[in-house]
């Protein structure tokens, strides 16, 4: 990633089959863009179009360009060459394997060393109150542990220049730290969110309706100030949660 990559989404059609209002949006490395909209407005479809680098071949007829050009086929499918890492809505693993075995297998599929497995577990443990270990069985992880592991996996194993995040708010993990980890250095980050803090952390957000990108909203100065205040409140809530979780009383020195 020496030079900054750009990602361009060329508008397609909405659920009624008419052209979506936003005809083109380009995102540069280092930028975090939000996607907002009510349930069923097409947020996940947009994320999935970006994940598969759609070439007019999905129901939305969108086209995704990398550095202004149509990507090669193998970049779309081969995990070793993939440009996109995705943190999806699914909160649980279904694979019948232990954490270590799974991470080693994933590292292999991405052409990375197996030694990343324990590091990934350590990183996951910085994001979630309930620690996990390489010997844990994947299917027994809690929602928060799964999310923390998926996040750490994206930061270390998938480590792609484009990161897609489909809602991390209610996951029981430190979301700002998670976002910071996921965005790495110079990555393009696209985050679907209902969460005011996450949405206002982004300088631009795409509003979705009826399956289409309806407009692009630039964050105002007021929203920016509001976001810092909300972040303070959120950090306070996280500390309070820890105090309560550890069996202490609020306001009492532990």
């Amino acid at each position, binding site marked *: 990633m020496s030079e900054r990559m750009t990602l361009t989404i060329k508008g397609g059609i909405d659920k009624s089959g008419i052209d979506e209002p936003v005809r083109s949006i380009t995102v540069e490395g280092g930028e975090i863009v939000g996607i907002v909209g009510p349930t069923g407005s097409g947020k996940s*479809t947009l994320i*999935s179009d970006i*994940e*598969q680098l759609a070439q007019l*071949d*999905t*129901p939305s007829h969108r086209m995704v360009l990398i550095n202004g050009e149509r990507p090669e086929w193998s970049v779309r*499918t081969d*995990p070793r060459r993939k440009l996109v*890492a*995705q*943190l*999806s809505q*699914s909160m649980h*693993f*279904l*694979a*019948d*394997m232990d954490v270590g075995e*799974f991470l080693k*297998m*994933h590292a*292999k*599929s*991405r052409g990375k060393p197996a030694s990343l497995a324990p590091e990934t577990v350590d990183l996951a443990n910085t994001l979630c109150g309930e620690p996990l270990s390489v010997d844990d069985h994947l299917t027994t992880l809690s929602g928060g542990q799964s999310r923390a592991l*998926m996040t750490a*996996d994206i930061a270390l*194993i*998938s480590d792609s220049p484009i990161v897609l995040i489909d809602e991390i708010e209610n996951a029981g993990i430190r979301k700002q730290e998670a976002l910071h980890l996921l965005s790495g250095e110079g990555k393009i980050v696209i985050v679907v969110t209902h969460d005011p803090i996450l949405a206002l952390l982004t300088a631009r957000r795409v509003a979705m309706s009826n399956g289409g990108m309806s407009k692009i909203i630039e964050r105002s100065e007021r929203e920016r100030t509001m976001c810092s205040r909300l972040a303070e409140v959120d950090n306070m809530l996280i500390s309070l949660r820890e105090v309560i979780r550890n069996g202490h009383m609020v306001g009492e020195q532990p």
Partner: protein
Amino acid sequence: MKYVVFAGTPGSGKTSVLMSLAKTMQERGFRPSIVKIDCLWTEDDKRLLRLGLPVRVALSKDMCPDHFAIYNIEEMIAWAGQEDSDLLLNETAGLCLRCAPFTESCLAVCVIDVTSGPNTPLKVGPLLTSADVVMMTKGDMVSQAEREVFRERVLEANPTCQAIEANGLTGKGSTELADIVTRWGHVTKGMRLRNNPPFSICTLCAGETRVEKEHHRGILRHMDSFVEYQGE
């Protein structure tokens, strides 16, 4: 006639993937017809008929559905020809993991569900190992990491296949599959199977219901893998 066989475990998404492909091929000017094979019962024909294409269902009843499919390939192809088709899509029952009704010249498609876990590709046998294309469905229900681990396992079991991430609900993967079908050749006379179907003539096949060993003849395999022949 192009001949595409969809095999895969029950509920893996065969009908969904087949229907998306049929639509895509129709848009490209092909005239598909469809045969669904199952054992005892199926409702797939109700869904398939919505495509407005020629559809036939055949039930194998007391036979192995894959063996049944194999005996009937000639008849299926003749029927599709009478329907003025140039593409026959065959959905199998996919119960017996030992047989795969893939012929040499068909396009062999294995439909496999990623939610069944990354050990499944190692379990399903010729259904997967002798397929040309593997359509991995239901990826929307797991994480990207899990999809990629699954793909790795598929490629371990069948290194030369085209592994495609598919979604039976949205039609994802259908364009890639359609490109392969479009390139693929036609079936010819004198077709052969890719695999030997398992050797399975035993006393039970002939209707024996008594359980004890003394009542059984033929080639018998024991739990310790010892194989013996009992009989004339």
